[in-house]
């Protein structure tokens, strides 16, 4: 006989109570892991998209809020508010490259897909795109589109296929090589064609700017603002403001999970207090045959900790499975639209796995402290005389 064996025998003797208490901590940890994993995936993806954007500065209409800034990264439809004249003025500033975006939406087989109007030559140079199949755009007026690899795969598109966008036919001219960014899930068409199709005059949604000398970014911001009546945000500021929103959402979700874990902790305390009350006599027997107070304390603390370790393992596994299963469904939401396919990296985060199990163990140990102390304070005679 050894202490761990005794602990397992004790804890599993009331199977129903064991299972329900274990479920409490398991569900708490599973929800914690799910939310942390999804939040981590979201943050990684925001960072990835910000770097894939390839811009040092984003020029937006004045008065855009954070949601619209997020949409720059997610590829959501944006209001068109910058006249093309402003694009020209900004492009004329020496030492920077400016590419305008007109981001709109269409639907293919009832699935929303971003349609982005671009200056095709400038964009190709800006992004370093390569063509997988077919050809690249060759005129601002042609009624053709190029599509990202993800869209081509999802809707089984090939060069020369026809796509109907807003009731007009466009032929698929080429398919982009996979970039790993949101460019894979968008349709690109010449800017003027997009402006005509969506009836937005000569306006664009935002302008991505790459500067030649990163150390002079602040100077360029001033120059752009002097030249044009627009707002300028650096990629770092954009990332920071988007991450702060994502962070707030993550923290809120984690707080909800923390409440679940707190409830589970009280479940453990309740179970342990009941066990001590039922096993008073047994505590006396153990003391009579030589168990020290600290051994009794240790036995009950381990029983409580066992819930944490086991609940932690099952909860982490359940949370990871649930987060990877649920990610595609949550990705229907536009805020988390870019989660798809990004959850795996977070799921394999060893720090999250070990951290959550340790957290679970810690919570259950803390929950067990008071009951274990109560058990160890019983004197042998009062415990053994208990009927």
């Amino acid at each position, binding site marked *: 006989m050894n202490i761990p064996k005794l602990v397992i025998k004790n804890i599993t003797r009331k199977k129903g109570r064991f299972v329900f208490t274990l479920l409490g901590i398991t569900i708490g940890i599973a929800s914690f892991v799910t939310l942390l994993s999804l939040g981590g995936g979201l943050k990684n993806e925001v960072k990835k998209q910000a770097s894939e954007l390839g811009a040092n500065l984003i020029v937006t209409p004045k008065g855009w809020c954070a949601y619209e800034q997020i949409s720059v990264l997610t590829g959501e439809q944006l209001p068109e508010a910058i006249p093309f004249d402003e694009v020209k003025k900004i492009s004329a500033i020496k030492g920077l490259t400016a590419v305008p975006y007109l981001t709109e939406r269409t639907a293919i087989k009832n699935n929303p897909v971003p349609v982005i109007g671009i200056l095709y030559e400038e964009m190709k140079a800006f992004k370093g795109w390569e063509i997988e199949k077919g050809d690249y755009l060759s005129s601002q007026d042609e009624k053709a589109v190029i599509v990202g690899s993800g869209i081509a795969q999802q809707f089984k598109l090939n060069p020369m296929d026809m796509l109907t966008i807003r009731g007009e036919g466009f032929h698929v001219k080429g398919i982009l090589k996979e970039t790993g960014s949101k460019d894979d899930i968008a349709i690109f068409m010449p800017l003027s064609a997009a402006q005509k199709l969506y009836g937005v005059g000569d306006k664009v949604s935002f302008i991505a700017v790459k500067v030649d000398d990163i150390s002079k970014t602040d100077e360029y911001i001033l120059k752009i603002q002097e030249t044009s009546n627009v707002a300028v945000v650096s990629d770092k500021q954009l990332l920071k403001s988007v991450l702060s929103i994502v962070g707030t959402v993550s923290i809120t979700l984690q707080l909800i999970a923390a409440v679940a874990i707190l409830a589970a902790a009280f479940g453990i305390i309740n179970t342990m207090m009941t066990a001590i009350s039922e096993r008073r*006599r047994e505590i006396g027997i*153990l003391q*009579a*045959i*030589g168990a*020290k*107070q600290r051994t009794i304390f240790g036995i009950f603390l381990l029983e409580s900790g066992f819930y944490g370790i086991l609940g932690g393992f099952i909860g982490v596994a359940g949370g990871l499975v649930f987060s990877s299963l649920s990610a595609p469904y949550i990705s229907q939401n536009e805020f988390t639209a870019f989660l798809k396919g990004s959850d795996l990296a977070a799921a394999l985060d060893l720090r999250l796995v070990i951290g959550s199990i340790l957290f679970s163990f810690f919570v259950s140990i803390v929950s067990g402290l008071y009951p274990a102390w109560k058990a160890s304070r019983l*004197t*042998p005679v009062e415990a053994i005389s208990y009927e």
Partner: protein
Amino acid sequence: MNDIIVRTENLIKTYNTGKVKIFALRGINLEIPRGSFSCIIGPSGHGKSTLMHLIGGLDKPTEGSVFIDGLDITGLSNSGLSELRAKRIGFVFQFFNLLQNLTSEENVETAMMFSKTPEKTQKEKAKELLSLVGLSDKFNAKPSELSGGQQQRIAIARALANDPEMLLMDEPTGNLDSESETEVLSQIFKLHKRGKTIIIVTHNSEIARKAEIVCKIKDGRVDK
């Protein structure tokens, strides 16, 4: 070696129940020789079990001292008392007090676990002791599957697990039918023959007749 294994000196135990002070023991002086078979008898509620608890270090006296082999155990810490109980005293109770979720073998092993006996030795010795009390076919039986007499024999095997010099028994046959009582008593007498010091709290006149020392407790005092 000291021939007196247990000595009590003016042992007083009081309990406070609200404003009332109850005297359980009113100054007990007692000497138990090593290897003897002693009985503590007396009416119910007169302090027999309290005396046994104090001798076994399960409780502390309000005044006075208990000496085991010359060592004043009333000065020992809780941890020191636990060690004393683990290594030098074996208890047998009226209601067996076995751990219900463990098998008979595991019950005996648990006592050895607290004296830090290696697991392999625990297993061997538990089997040996259960065979000694005639339960070699009940190693894996849980207490609920056994008769009262069998349970008490397991309790005796557990009390012997750490090879203590002294066995303290509180009404060991008090909850048994006559057949089981005979079984258990024969085990107890055997143990005495093997040299163990046995102190029994009992109402059983047969045990008292066979005892070498009989100490009658009445109103918390030794009744001469």
